[in-house]
């Protein structure tokens, strides 16, 4: 298996090179540049031109790209044109926020989805199942941004239970104070986000249980007189959780990438928000670095999924 993993890792290199080139070119093709917003006759156009030249924006794309890749090998992601700090520190700042939000979201997602999936599978075609199905259709059908804005309006503004933006309150101090404030800022977006990402998990789990219920080994276990609870928990549930576990790798990367909408709605300073902002502001250095990271995450996520799958299901071997 390790051979396979190594091979997969090696294949990732050309994939990433092509990805980064595409991204770099597309970014450069957008109209405007990081200095467009700075146009202002009291800032002399000549000075802006001089700064643009100094930043190398007039070099041909392959030179700019080469410079970028060269720096990359030295572990230097460049300096943000807009924020004027190193891109790595900027991303690190945001990645921490996104990581915690994603983790909380994942936990809540499973906390909601697994019981729902089990209930629906176990009580197939009974009222519990119907109720879960209805919930599933609703959350599947509502577009994320509508759902988030509704939630923000209801719980953030109308009821005033939760903060409406940011990741930490300005008045928080001390370790516990800051931690509490961070959690408080994350909880509403995490719940809202989790609620509408449960669909897949619930559906997989329900289908798995429904399918496994009629498998031969279940019938065998029942006929041997194994108690119903044990049959369900040990035989049916375990096997039904397989696809979900396998999906974990993708779920994690999906959360990082899919955080753009929720982070934008809640003005939550994470990676997704940074990505949106750097597009709007033509902050090429940040933008390209982010895409590269998202790309790596996706590829690694896929690999992780395969590895997890092969570990938990002895029938599967990746070659």
């Amino acid at each position, binding site marked *: 298996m390790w051979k396979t993993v190594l091979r997969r890792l090696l294949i990732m290199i050309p994939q990433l090179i092509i990805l980064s080139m595409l991204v770099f070119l597309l970014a450069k093709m957008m109209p405007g540049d990081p200095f467009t917003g700075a146009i202002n006759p009291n800032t002399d156009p000549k000075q802006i031109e001089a700064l643009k030249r100094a930043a190398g924006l007039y070099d041909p794309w392959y030179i700019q790209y080469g410079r970028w890749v060269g720096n990359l090998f030295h572990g230097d992601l460049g300096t943000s044109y807009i924020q004027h700090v190193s891109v790595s520190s900027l991303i690190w700042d945001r990645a921490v926020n996104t990581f915690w939000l994603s983790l909380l979201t994942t936990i809540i997602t499973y906390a909601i989805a697994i019981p729902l999936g089990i209930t629906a599978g176990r009580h197939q075609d009974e009222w519990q199942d119907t109720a879960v199905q209805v919930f599933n259709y609703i959350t599947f059908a509502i577009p994320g941004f509508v759902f988030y804005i509704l939630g923000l309006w209801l719980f*953030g503004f109308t009821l005033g239970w939760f903060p409406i933006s940011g990741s930490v309150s300005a*008045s928080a101090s001390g370790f516990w104070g800051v931690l509490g404030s961070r959690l408080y800022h994350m909880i509403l977006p995490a719940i809202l986000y989790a609620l509408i990402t449960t669909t897949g998990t619930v559906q997989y789990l329900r289908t798995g249980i429904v399918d496994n219920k009629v498998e031969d080994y279940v019938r065998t276990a029942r006929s041997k007189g194994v108690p119903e609870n044990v049959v369900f928990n040990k035989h049916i549930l375990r096997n039904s959780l397989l696809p979900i576990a396998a999906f974990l790798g993708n779920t994690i990367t999906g959360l990082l990438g899919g955080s753009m909408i929720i982070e934008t709605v809640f003005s939550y300073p994470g990676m997704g928000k940074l990505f949106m902002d750097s597009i709007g502001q033509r902050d090429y250095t940040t933008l390209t670095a982010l895409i590269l990271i998202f790309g790596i995450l996706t590829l690694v996520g896929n690999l992780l999924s395969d590895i997890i799958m092969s570990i938990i299901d002895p029938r599967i071997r990746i070659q």
Partner: protein
Amino acid sequence: MKKAKIFAGITLLSGAALTLVACGKSNNQSVDETKTASKFSDTVPVKATKDGGTVKVAVETDTPFTGIFNDELSTSAIDSEVSQYGSESLFATDDHYKFTDKGAATIKIDQKAKTATITIKKGVKWSDGKQVTAKDYEYAYEIIANKDSGSQRYSSSLAELEGLAEYHDGKSKTISGIEMPDGENGRVVVLHFKHMAPGMNTSGSGYIWETAAPYHYLKDVAFKDLMASDKIRKKPLYFGAYKLDKIVRGQSVTWVPNEYYYKGKPKISKIVATVISPNSVAQSIKSGKFDVTEVIKSQWQNVKNTKDVNFIAQIPLAYSYLGFKVGKWDSKKGENVMDKNSKMNNKALRQAIAYGMNVEQVGKRYSFGLSFRVPTLIPSSFGEYHDSSIKGYTYNLKKGNEILDKAGYKKKGEYRVQPNGKPLTIYLAAMSGNSNQEPIIQNYIQQWKKLGLNVKLTGGRLIEFNSFYDKVKNDDPSVDMFLAAWSLSSEPSPADLYGKTSPFNYSRFATAENQKLLDEIDSAKAFNNSYRVKAFHKWQKYMNDEAYVVPVSNSYKIVAVNKKLTGYSLKPSKSMGNGYPNWYDVALVK
């Protein structure tokens, strides 16, 4: 020159920000509302105050702020917004932005000697207790002009200071035009200029830098590291009323009183400014989440009945305009070159198009009367420089048709043709913005159709901000006219926007007469104010008649201030020269 960025020294405004703003479908706004709007006060009622308390301010932006706490290096308007509590300008101004001696320093301009003498008042101290010195002022110039610092503020206007260009090019280690008669630790600086300009006694002219930087604190940081240094990003020094206490990067700043402030300790014990999304503003005002919130105009209908807040307003130094492309920018010569044969190079046609715009109706219908027509290119905020006798182009289809008939634009079928018989299609470039932008632009196209003019949108639809300016700036042939906006510097000279050598003169008109009139405004004779007033009026008349650029509209900036606050004023004379309210005067009501 903090004003340069705050009054936004003529930055590009997105159409969404200023032009034809507003949403909501309520179309029966009465005339009364326009009246109520103009009745806004620019100051909250004066009341007895008490010490202490926390004030929460909303910073409305979709993107986290950059947080460069230094006037020489920062460029974003949001950064100046979050630093307004500490970043005070050296000079205070009157309501027309002329320098007064009420600020931290005084300035005396000597036209004959070509100098400006700046005297920093004794007791004006940085928030670490050190006196602001002559060197601090010189250091500000060094930061701007040093190529390593990456400052965007260096300009040809500033380079009118003797020796600044040499310093900028690395030919000299000091700036020869800065004289410090009492030494670096003194409080007097004499600036020596190559030429004098009449606007020099006005804030935002661009010739004189208006803030200082703490040399004793920053001298150990290399110029190239300044912008990213913690001393600027996390623990800056200012000499204003409040000092930065805490910052959550991109999200919020907390300011506490500067105990060394030269006017005494301010009253509020904590000011917290927090970023919120513009989409959340209306709800924030209604739920009282902040004490100071700027109203988004399209949400006005939604918030105007909110209790416990005072709505105060100001007319920003800005206007939207319709520009006609009549030439090209010659980047080799660095000047605008007119094309005699260009489609829009016909005065009658331009005037008729201007008469076809029902700006007042649009303002009433789409922005609750909060936006209004601007008759001339020098807004009334500039006092006597504004020519109030000019009425501009009020909506008048009959007149428009007459002008076109007379000029030989004959109707052939539905539309008019050019005097030479060729068909006439005019391509209009307009920025996309909120949902009202589309109906507003379509409305204008309908009006022009009534004049028999075939106006089409460039590319068939509204254009995103960046692409729009890309096309307009590069004289894209698919643009015959365009709707854009300027926010103005507080020094009214229009040379930067409409001069022959100005790249921002997007219409690309460059008549000898125009240049002559512009030169008069900034000539030596114009040191005589009444001469300058006349010169301004002459130029406005000329521009109004030629209609290369037709001013369209402007709208109120409305701020919702919690009734428990007093001392908050938007008057320029009440500001500490930085374009923001003077926070030293603001306090909680007893």
